[in-house]
């Protein structure tokens, strides 16, 4: 896992064959969205089919941050890939639900045992 400074934000990313996971993102805000987006897009090489955002430690999400997530979601969809939000923190989940975007994103809740539940549109469940 690599730890990278995006301007003043420190975030991590971990890449396996077709999957990349970004984690330790302290905030997704309008003021940081531009830098984070540039960083993430740079890492989304063509072979990547799943982009995961571990938002368990993200304690701030505003409409600018939502715009960033949607742009990545669109980018992944255009290459037939997926954008998954992992273990969103309570405030992130609340903002996603308030704006009804929890129906748009794949949201995966990892349990302590390591199993994961991906929900989308509240109906689709995958191991």
């Amino acid at each position, binding site marked *: 896992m690599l730890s990278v400074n995006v301007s003043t934000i420190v975030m991590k990313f971990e890449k396996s064959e077709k999957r990349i996971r970004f984690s330790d993102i302290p905030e997704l805000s309008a*003021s*940081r969205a531009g830098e984070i987006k540039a960083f993430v897009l740079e890492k989304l090489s063509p072979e990547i089919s799943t982009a995961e955002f571990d938002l368990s430690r993200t*304690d701030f999400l505003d409409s600018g941050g939502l*715009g*960033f997530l949607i742009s990545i979601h669109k980018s992944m969809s255009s290459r037939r890939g997926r954008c998954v939000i992992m273990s969103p923190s*309570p405030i992130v989940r609340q903002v996603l639900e308030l704006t009804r975007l929890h129906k748009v994103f794949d949201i995966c809740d990892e349990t302590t045992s390591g199993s994961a539940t991906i929900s989308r549109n509240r109906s689709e469940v995958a191991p």
Partner: protein
Amino acid sequence: MNCGTSIDCRILPDLHHVRESAANIHRHLIKLGYDPHQSREFEIILVEVLNNLVAHATRQKIHENIRLVVSCHRESVNAQIFDHSHGFIWNENPQLPGDDAESGRGLYLVHQLADSVQYFRNLEGNLLWIEKKLKPASPGESSGTDGTTPSATQLNINADSMDDSLPASGSEQDPDMNQEVLSALFGVIREISESRDSSPAVARRLLHRLCCLIESEWFMFFEVLPDRENFRLTASSIEEDRERIIENSFSLLVKQMLLSAHDHTWDEILRGEFPNEVFNNYLPSPYKWAHVCPVVIAGELFGVLTLGHRPSSGSIPPKHRRLIQIFSEFLAIQIQSRKAQESQIRSTVLKQELEIARNIQQALLPGKLPLDNYFEISVSCETAQKVGGDFFDIEHLSEGEFLIYIVDVMGKGIPAALFATICRTIFKYNKSHYRSPAHILSETNNYLFDDLCSVEMFITAQVLYLNAREKKAILANAGHPPLIIKSGNNPSVREVCPEGLPIGIYRDTFFEEQVIPLPANFDILMYTDGLTDTRDAENREYFGINGLKSWIGSNSDCHKAPHEVIRELKGFLRKFSTHNIQSDDQTIIAISERRTCPSPSS
């Protein structure tokens, strides 16, 4: 929990600074003992609103700091954000954009997360007031458990100034007083926006609230009338008989002041320091001790507010004067806004009524022109406004026999349309006298003379009887422009205008009848003066009767069907009067001897 704290800060107009300032406020709220999650929601609200202001700041004020005042109360926190954008229409019910939109969710989030949001526009700028209920942090969740609680030195809001130690009461900057004022104002705004009260009712509501706030006992609000020389009592809290006394006293005092200050205008006197002590001598018991405040909006005196106060309290304290000013300005804006709304509603209703009137008038005009083996007739009738004073009717009496009226009621719009409709009924009633157009005009004059005289209006009309077998027409005229006739074999164009004054000028007036032999291949044109009064592009020259005759003469080489004559004539007039809007109703009736077999499509 440390309630009553107020943070007054200036935030740099930059997204990073906004974010940092909001984060600092969030930390401060946790330190004060508020629930961390709700404090975070409040932080999101602040960021969304402030980002919006940064994005929409006017070019001149793009570098100006944004003032944010956060007031903390036992169960709520509110933010007052002083907006230096142009101001906007606050959407009370923002909708979410499409799922793939990357923006447009900010204000929706604000509405979802805040308990109350009010946007207040006044002359001194715009103010966004947000309230969020915040509960205390649960045990174990208080300051420090968030992991972000700063030390005292870290609590440095990213702003030019910050003061969280304002006194609880006393000065004009008193946060509790500001809070009270704003709560009162927004309470009234909410009530006003939910009600359909008229402007006096709005004024009463607002001034009652002001009186409670400054402990005033009564109020009277006088509004300046459009003549700018008189007042009207718009709202008052006292009995009607006492109202009159105070109103008269006030008018008397203002008149006396005017007499004694020759070089001052009425407006200048009222804007100056009003002699309250003198005025108090005029007041009936128990309405002593009035304070008169001018209400000036956009540099113009809008009204005068009179507030009564207890003698024991002396004069109105300065901090209350400021409140009175704020409420007065707000009141004036509300009254103006209500009036604009009322006027808009009236205008909408009037438009609908005019549309109905137009439909009725159109329905009264002949829908489909009769087909006849001897004559071809075509008509164009255009009104300058929704409804007009021109009308025509074509009675097909028998094959080759017509009675045609063309009428122009003086003026335009609804009054003209009303008389046009009455006139049409009278003509219809007299159509049995078709062989005598003069008789029809005479009867119409008899019926309408008194009514037209009482409103100082008149009507011009022309009635034409056409008979193909007898190859003649009979024409009578009531002050109407001449009928134009042209023989197909003769290029000369002739005016026919039998003697007759307009209807409504004299009670027993004479209408001449003129018999016109119908030559072979004739063309006849009947019209209202809207045609000949058309002005040229420079607005200097009328088309005139000579212009019309000249146009018909120059188009005499070929025998055109009446609808072609009208189309070409109107095309010519459009070019003649380029850029000029049609200012009068315009009706044209073209009649010719039939040269082709009649077909339903014609």
